[in-house]
């Protein structure tokens, strides 16, 4: 299946996302493994919703790349056509596709200059659909992370 591409450049830092939910919860991990957290969905004055992703304890010089493969995203009560990902703190979103009728989105983002051990890395903007609370989650099995040292970070 072929779909359209959107891409963006933003300078800043790096982060790793292991699991993102709309409930603003910690994803419990063992010591020295990457920690991933997501903000609760928050609404902008214009009605749009946002979720910010942050990481901590990134090994290998910090997070330098993130890849969410097909089936990695799960959206609930969200208008998929409105989803837009942007990098934070230097992350460059090199490819993204959340367009319907895709069952989920795909995304690639890297930090060209450095790795980030802890900090914000991505922001997802979207509009809610229906009356329920919007929620976003990422399946860790569909998530690939790389470090500044050029290695795949094991989850």
């Amino acid at each position, binding site marked *: *299946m*072929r*779909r*359209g*591409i959107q*891409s963006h*450049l933003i300078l800043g*830092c790096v982060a790793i996302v292991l699991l993102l939910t709309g409930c*603003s919860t910690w994803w419990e991990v063992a010591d020295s493994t990457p920690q991933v*957290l*997501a*903000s*609760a969905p928050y609404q*902008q*004055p214009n009605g749009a919703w946002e979720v*910010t992703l*942050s990481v*901590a304890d990134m090994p290998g010089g910090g997070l*330098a*790349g*993130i*890849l969410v*493969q*097909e089936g990695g995203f799960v959206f609930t009560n969200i208008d998929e056509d409105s989803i837009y990902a942007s990098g934070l*703190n230097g992350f*460059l979103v*090199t*490819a993204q*596709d959340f367009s319907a009728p895709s069952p989920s989105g*795909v*995304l*690639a983002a*890297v*930090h*060209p*200059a450095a790795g980030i*051990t*802890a*900090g*914000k890395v991505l922001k997802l903007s979207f509009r809610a659909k229906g009356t329920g609370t919007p929620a976003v989650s990422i399946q860790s099995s569909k998530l*690939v*992370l*790389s470090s500044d040292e*050029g*290695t*795949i970070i094991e989850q």
Partner: protein
Amino acid sequence: MRFRIKRVLVSLAILVAVISGAQGAEYIDSFDDAPFAGNPTNFTTGEASRGLSYAGANCDFGYSAGNKNVNALALVFPGEASITITSRAGGSFVFKSLYLDTLQAATISGTGDQPFTINVGAGSTGTFSPTAGDRIVNQVQIATVDPHPDFDIIFDTVTVDLAAPEIDIEGNATSIEDGDNSPVATDHTHFGNIVVGESFDRTFTIQNEGDAELTLDGDPIVGLTGSGDFSVETQPAADSIDDGGADLTFVVRCTPSGTGDRTATVSIDNNDSNEHPYTFDVRATGAVPEIDVQGDGVSIADGDDTPDPVDDTDFGDSDILGESVGHTFTIHNTGNAELTLTDPSPFVTIEGDGAGDFEITTVPDSSIDPAGSTTFVVEFDPSVEGDREATISIASDDADEDPYTFDIIGTGTVAPQIDILGNSQIIPNGDTTPDAADDTDFGQHDIAGGTQTHTFTIQNTGSGELTLDGDPLAEVTGPAAGDFDISLEPVSPVTAVDGETTFEITFNPSALGDREASISVANDADKDPYTFDILGQGTSAPEMDIQGTGQSIPSGDITPAAIDDTDFGDTHVDGATETHTFTIENTGSAQLNLTNGDPLVVVEGDHAIDFTVVQQPAAAIAASRGTTTFDVRFDPSETGLRTATLRIANDDGDENPYTFAIQGTGVFPSQSGAPVFVSQAATATTGDASAVTHSTARVEGTVNPGNTSTTVTFEFGPANGSAPSSNADPYPFVAVAEQSPVDGTGILTVHAFLQNLQMDCVYQYRVVAKNTNGVCYGARKTFKTHSLERGDLNADYMIDLLDIRICAQIATGYLVANDQVLTQADFDDDGDVDLEDVQRLSAYVLGIEGGEE
């Protein structure tokens, strides 16, 4: 009120009691003291009228039994009637017959029971009911049965029921008394309040409750006198009502020409005997509505253009992103007529330049009773900074204040609003309870170099730009301020409406225990300065590491290898030994203690007897990379593989005991009995290549060192054809075997890793064994390096996230690559590596449109 009029017209017939008697004539002249003859007499129904008598010659009774006739003069029955004749004295007689004749003297003879008997006794009656029509009783014949009555018989009662009309008028199904001059609402004679100029109708009903036709003989039938504000809108449909006939109605209208009471009298001429004419008063009150609007209990003048907080017309200041401000206004009706708001819902309109910033959130009632009120709420929610003005307009049926208008005003303001977040959680200003949940607790870290960096976000949720005006912008203070470093400063100003900037704090404890500090961010918002406490703990602990030949041996290692000396190799069983030295290093910040006692290093396992710790380490190893060593000697007692495990108890928090496996191989010195320690030239056999990539390969061979220390290398170079060139070095490169130097007499397998090879190239290689007795070259062999797929920038035969990152580094100038990699990275073949290549490579990896076809 009803009256039944009994009209008894009695023109007394002469009643002649004929008293028959055998002797002598009886007379009956004692009927009355004042007899009259021939004159009609009026009676009221039910009254006992005495005085019936007789007169005239025809009334002279003879003294004899039998019938006597009495001629009536004029007993007129205008309608159906009955006549009752009562014997007052109670004398017994026979009322033999009653003759009724018409004016034409047609005798009605034999009507009724003839004769009927009136028994002796008071109250005895006899009743006769003639038919309808005017009649005259002109003769009554009375017969007695006693020819000699010796008592008086007085017929003293004549009762007559006559038909007559009876008028009654009702309003609201309630009878209105004739002559009523006190109008009330219950019978609709009082019309209530009527707006001046408007009309209001009341319907009244005329009934005939009598048993004769009621005639309405006025012209007009219903007349009015008094206030000219009343009129008869509809006259009765007929001028009479038959006995039992249908009711008639008429409608009276009132149209007040002014305020106050308006009164008139209704009059209806008719043939009711005692309610003629039938009159009653009607009344109404002229009324008007009157609007008044109040804010906070203060009346706001119609047309007021000077908004004032006193009457709530000035809404004051409100942040353009803050909560709206609501003011309640009350509409009073001070008039005596219902006030109607005439605009469509919400009945109140807001006009003017700032109208969009005001909204009617609570709608008033559209109708307000006299002396009543209703309220409406106006919400002020400014969209921009500055004064916002509008005009409230209320259209109504108030005669002189339509529409009722007044101006309102509010002021939109802007202001920054600061919050600081850690781990996406808001850290309350002034927070003194550091918590890992919001990243203000940095946790435990070793004082020997352990660091932790947390990122905090300054968020401006206000409507105005936020300025951080401290120097530095984020300042660390407190007893352990030196252990916290602002490793990334925030940026000021921060844009309004969810603008944000981040700063980083790195914790690097200099001492043990709790390390506390405070963060202060001076700013121009309402929380200035924004402060919160942070906390970290400095810790100290030993960290054990054991190395062999400088290679770290992980605790728990069960794979002995020569590279870290855990594999002692082949050792003769005839008394030869092999001793390896291992180093214990303490990389922690606290002293490391070996805790097993004597011995500190314990050998365990099936073949522990073949391994001896010939030199024990020191029991205490200093912090910060202090070291000690111990020696293990391998002395195989039998041939074959010999294994054991070393166990070292210690106080490392997570590596106690530290264990690793060791092994060695016991071999016989010689099977032939010949001298075994003869130095010989080595032999070498080139083996196969494996693990070939685009730039590396693993090559193997076997070597017999000839019981002499032998250096083993692999020579290699591009083949440039099927055979090496005669005038060029065919093996320009050399790689030393991992096992080199080797010694002994057996066949040893050796290998080397070849690196920096050209891709897609045929290489030739051979093993070379060199010792003091000569050089031996293995046979030439070849392999071909692989070619790379486009985009495999790190040449790992996978195109993945790592390649995307490398491509991005090249495109943004962070990485300078060689031509080979540049070619691989130029995904769109345009001669340049740029962001489009990054995007296309990313799309290719994700399998979406935009990747390489």
